[in-house]
């Protein structure tokens, strides 16, 4: 499906900058600081992961870039435009169960097009084309509850890709899947990333996963979440599952494990 009718966005879009971003939940004395002082720059088309334990504010950063979580201080910029609200240029794939249960697979995928008031026939054609790409064309009339977890996540990806986003934000999208399904999903994601020319920010607590996928891994520390180390993953692309057992991968993995295990008391910002 290389002669895709969905136009490719120019590859140079999708730069993300976070400048001193802090996020508080709640008000007054009950306020909880979710993240503090996040500085981050992601190049267009880059695949960057945020690695850290649960409760380190990884999902909060996704929410801030997506635009549905307001920042308390600092600024979020996508292609130099400050972000204040959600938009279809920044797609989000959540952990699980965020397909609309009352819509069929095809209607879920069509959602973004429907919001743009695309004609019904056109909508259907584009949705089926993307479903073909994620291997679910035969399931277009199923409801999400009738699909396995892996299939549901493929639909979630298709639902986002239909909007041709500049930025794809992924919040532990594969963490509920079994190991084999997971590897298949990771490979599919890498293919889609290459084909759709988008910037990906991928949040996970799985070291293997972020190393296999990313150009760069940001290691974050628990509350308030901060980024305390950066790891460049210079494994050659395209990558297949063989890379998971290579000596180079093992070296990176060991380094990453040291970084997670050695979170200092007062983290010093070494990001970038």
């Amino acid at each position: 499906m290389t002669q895709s009718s969905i136009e490719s966005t120019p590859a140079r879009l999708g730069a993300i900058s976070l400048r001193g971003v802090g996020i508080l939940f709640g008000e007054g004395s009950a306020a909880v600081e979710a993240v503090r002082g996040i500085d981050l720059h992601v190049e267009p088309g880059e695949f960057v992961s945020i690695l850290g334990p649960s409760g380190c504010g990884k999902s909060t950063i996704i929410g801030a870039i997506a635009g549905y979580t307001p920042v308390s201080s600092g600024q979020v910029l996508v292609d130099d435009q400050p972000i204040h609200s959600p938009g279809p240029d920044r797609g989000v794939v959540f952990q699980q169960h965020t397909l609309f249960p009352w819509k069929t697979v095809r209607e879920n995928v069509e959602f973004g097009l429907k919001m743009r008031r695309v004609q019904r026939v056109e909508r259907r054609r584009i949705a089926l084309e993307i479903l073909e790409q994620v291997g679910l064309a035969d399931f277009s009339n199923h409801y999400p509850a009738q699909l396995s977890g892996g299939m549901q996540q493929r639909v979630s990806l298709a639902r986002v890709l239909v909007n041709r986003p500049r930025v794809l934000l992924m919040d532990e999208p594969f963490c509920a899947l079994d190991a084999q399904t997971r590897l298949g999903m990771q490979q599919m994601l890498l293919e889609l990333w290459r084909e759709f020319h988008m910037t990906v920010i991928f949040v996970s607590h799985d070291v293997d996963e972020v190393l296999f996928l990313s150009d760069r891994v940001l290691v974050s520390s628990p509350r308030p979440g901060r980024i305390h180390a950066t790891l460049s993953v210079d494994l050659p692309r395209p990558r297949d599952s063989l890379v998971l057992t290579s000596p180079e991968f093992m070296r990176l993995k060991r380094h990453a494990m040291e970084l997670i295990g050695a979170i200092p008391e007062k983290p010093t910002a070494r990001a970038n």
Partner: protein
Amino acid sequence: MRSVVLEGSVELPVRERAVRVRSPARARALRSIAVGALSITAWLALWQAASVGEWDVFFRFENIPAPTEVARAALDLLANPKLLPHVWNSLQRIFIGFSIAAVLAVLMGLAIGRLRLAGEALLPPLEVLRPIPAVAWIPLAILLFASPEHSMVFITFIGAFFPILLNTIHGVEGIDPRLIHASLTLGARPLDVFREVILPGALPAIVTGLSIGMGTSWFSLVTAEMISGQYGIGYYTWEAYTLQNYPNIVLGMVGIGILGMGSASLVKWCGRRCMPWFKPEANTR
């Protein structure tokens, strides 16, 4: 297809076992039907004995019509359908009162569940009115409306309104916020979110509220008809009492039961038709 090589002696036990495996389930089903039928018959027989024998042990069966008398009255009614205009009147009142309640309660529930200001403005007065049973509104309703017809529709409305409202609010508040986030990041505007996420997301709870509301609106209507009505199945039942036509009391009661059950299942059936995706058991997955 079984291979020809197999001997009959092998084949037979296999088939026998298959029959034996299936039969306990069928036997259990038959038994439960038989037990149920037997139980109903026993209760009817007890009632018959009590009425014919005019039992007077705490319960006075002296004036209670026996099942046979009720059956005879039912046959009379089939020959001369005096009950139909009453049923028709009640159905009309239910339809109008329930429909107004459904539309108003769903709209208000969606607003209260979603908009903070609507909740702040509307909830306090509603909380004050909610504990008042619909029946307690009857005297005021008679004063409030010129026609008793209107006051009865109003009582029906009150009966249906609160269950629908509360379930709608509950349904809206129970929607996973990630579904709303997902819709926003896919380009939905506020009105789209309402139509595409809030309304379908709250629909299972709304349908529950509608079927509960259907029951309570019948309950309220029958009471209102007994007190202030002219025509209507509640009025018919009460009139049977005042005219000392006792078998018709039971007929009226049975009619109320059938109408209430029928309309509640109609609501449930419509709900299922609207939500082919909704499987209450499978929903935990």
